[in-house]
């Protein structure tokens, strides 16, 4: 019994100690009466959600330092969705019914968004979503969901934009020739969606094939058989859709197998720390929405980047950081124009958004296949050059010309 009491006391102490620390870390609520509350959910144990929430807080602090919105301060309330649908749904219930937030932002995984949608529908609060690329999410939302503002491109938007991008690149740079495309995709939902979208978009214009692999993120990491299939196919453009854990090991195995495509391109949601430092990384291409090199062409990006570095002393590692930062600014701007946080007025104001974002492009909302308010529709094609991600396409935000072909293995 004594032991049991002891353990209970230890737990209580540990919890309260941690809780105190956490409170200090998140900071005190901004002074002044009745702040505008922004509720957010992200997977905080994942780098995407963690930095997303940090960037959103950065935006809130910047706006509050500049006097807030409508004379009121902004307050960001973040709840961890733990990458689980039920936790994500409960988080929305809490933000709406307990914290009484004025609008919702955030999101990363489609699997969590699917679980949150029924709850979001119930309250029909304004949502500015920073994640959820799967077309299944859009199907789940339906055409009626005019309160849902989706910043992140849908999977088919991404596919379409790559198809456009390669067309444009081939036109501008005569030496780049693409006929055969091979996609190695991780076998989960993310990779399978990429494959389905690419097949329909590339299928007509190019000869296209693909094969699945088990991502190192889930205990795989053996790419020999998929690379062998790719090598046999002999593509001009080799694409892989997986996770950051796959990036370098796949490259190393490709070298070991002397697999040498004209373009070697990866499309993970994020890249490993210091990928650029590897000698193999040179001239690997990638799909993405943002890279620090955009600072050179976009003042918004530079402002975001410098602010993030100053506040947290670490580099934003994924595009979820600038995307989440954008979500807060878009919300603040719309509230200012609407003159209130009333949902109907806010929807109207948001629909008229025109925001020069750190992504190096201006964000507006236009209809996509089903929903009315889709933000970003295009992705960027980038290339690792001398350890930095340089934007190749779209040309208006390009920071470098493509190096082609991908150098042969020594």
């Amino acid at each position, binding site marked *: 019994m004594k032991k049991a009491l002891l353990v209970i006391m230890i737990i209580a102490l540990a919890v309260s100690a941690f809780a105190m620390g956490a409170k200090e870390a998140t900071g005190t609520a901004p002074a002044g009466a009745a702040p505008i509350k922004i509720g957010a959910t992200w997977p905080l144990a994942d780098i995407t959600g963690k930095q997303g929430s940090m960037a959103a807080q950065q935006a809130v602090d910047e706006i509050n330092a500049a006097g807030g919105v409508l004379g009121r301060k902004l307050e960001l309330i*973040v709840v961890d969705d733990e990458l689980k649908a*039920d936790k994500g749904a409960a988080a929305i219930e809490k933000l709406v019914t307990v914290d009484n937030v004025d609008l919702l932002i955030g999101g990363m995984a489609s699997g969590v968004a699917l*679980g949150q949608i*029924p709850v979001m529908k*119930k309250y029909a609060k304004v949502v500015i979503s920073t994640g959820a690329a799967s077309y299944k999410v859009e199907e789940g939302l339906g055409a009626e969901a005019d309160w849902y503002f989706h910043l992140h491109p849908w999977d088919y938007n991404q596919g379409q934009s790559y198809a456009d991008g390669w067309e444009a690149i081939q036109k501008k740079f005569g030496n780049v020739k693409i006929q055969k495309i091979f996609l190695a995709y991780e076998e989960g*939902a993310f990779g399978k969606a990429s494959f389905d979208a690419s097949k329909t978009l590339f299928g007509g214009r190019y000869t296209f094939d693909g094969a699945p692999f088990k991502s190192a993120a889930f205990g795989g990491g053996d790419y020999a058989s998929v690379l062998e299939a790719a090598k046999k196919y002999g593509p001009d453009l080799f694409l892989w859709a997986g996770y950051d854990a796959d990036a370098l090991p796949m490259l190393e195995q490709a070298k070991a197998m002397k697999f040498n495509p004209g373009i070697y391109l990866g499309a993970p949601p994020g890249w490993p720390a210091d990928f650029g430092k590897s000698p193999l990384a040179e001239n690997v291409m990638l799909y993405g929405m943002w890279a620090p090199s955009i600072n050179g062409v976009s003042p918004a990006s530079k402002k975001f980047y410098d602010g993030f570095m100053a506040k947290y002393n670490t580099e934003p590692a994924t595009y979820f950081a600038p995307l989440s930062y954008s979500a807060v600014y878009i919300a603040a701007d719309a509230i200012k124009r609407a003159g209130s946080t009333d949902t109907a007025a806010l929807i109207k104001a948001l629909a008229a958004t025109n925001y020069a974002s750190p992504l190096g492009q201006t964000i507006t909302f236009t209809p996509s296949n089903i929903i009315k308010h889709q933000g970003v529709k295009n992705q960027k094609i980038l290339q690792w050059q001398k350890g930095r991600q340089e934007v190749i396409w779209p040309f208006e935000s390009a920071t470098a010309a493509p190096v082609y072909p991908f150098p042969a293995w020594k």
Partner: protein
Amino acid sequence: MKLKSSYIVVAVLSVIAIAFPAFLGAYPLNVARSIMTYMALAISWDMLLRSGQISFGIAGLFGLGSYASALAVLRGGMDPMLSIVFAAAFAGVMAYALGFAILRLRSMYFSITTLALMEIFRIVMHNLHDFSGGPEGVVLPSVIFKGASPALYWLCLAGLFLTIGVSWFFEKSKMHLALTAIRNDETSARSSGVNIFNYLLIAFVITSVLQGMMGAIQVQSYGFTTPDTAFDANFTLLPLAMALLGGIHSTIGPMAGAVLLGVASEWLKLKIPYGHLVVYGIIIILVILFMPQGLFGLARKARRERSKAGASHE
């Protein structure tokens, strides 16, 4: 007299549980649903454990129930409520068929086999693209009861009540004698006329029905499922941890454990946004080290010590 007073306590608690939506908001009801789902899984796992068989396949039957229900609605146009019954029955039939092979196994080999079966179910659902939606899963046209919080809560509560009721029946009927005898000593049980295989099969099928049912309720309440959500290893590991922390071989133990871990996880997350799972893990370690018999086991021990002290006074 004692029995009667405990009946009254149970009745009062049930009424309170049923009346929760009257005085709780949507958020606590949502959290309660999560906890109740895990609680039902923990109790059902414990029911089979009373025979000594450790199943690692809870997530397998839970996921099978999820898919059976979702696909029955989506592909067969079945009524959602009916699909829950269908899914429970489907899980039961699968368990019955599989039981013939795997219930001859004991200890770790049984556990591993149930774990492997769960993985097989997951991979099959992952690969049957046209039928099950593949890795992206299935999205239902709408959530049951249009997502009204109280209705979803009561549906989940009904599943939990059924589970508790069956577990209580297991404790009070000859199932209790049969399963405990099998767990303590199979040879003795056999010479006392216990048909071991039959009782294991009954327990396995019934617990699978309950797990399949909870899976179906889950999928109808959230309106979608994917192989990774339906067969999430957490649906196996968390119920195990809950039952153990609360005290195994009882109904009340897993319930206490589910409340402890369920509330702790939600509360910690709000208090410690970054890193709450570290504390969660440490709580599990400390409870196992210092309360090896779980919360309820501790209470049971204390009661026994008191009665012993009383007996020596006489």
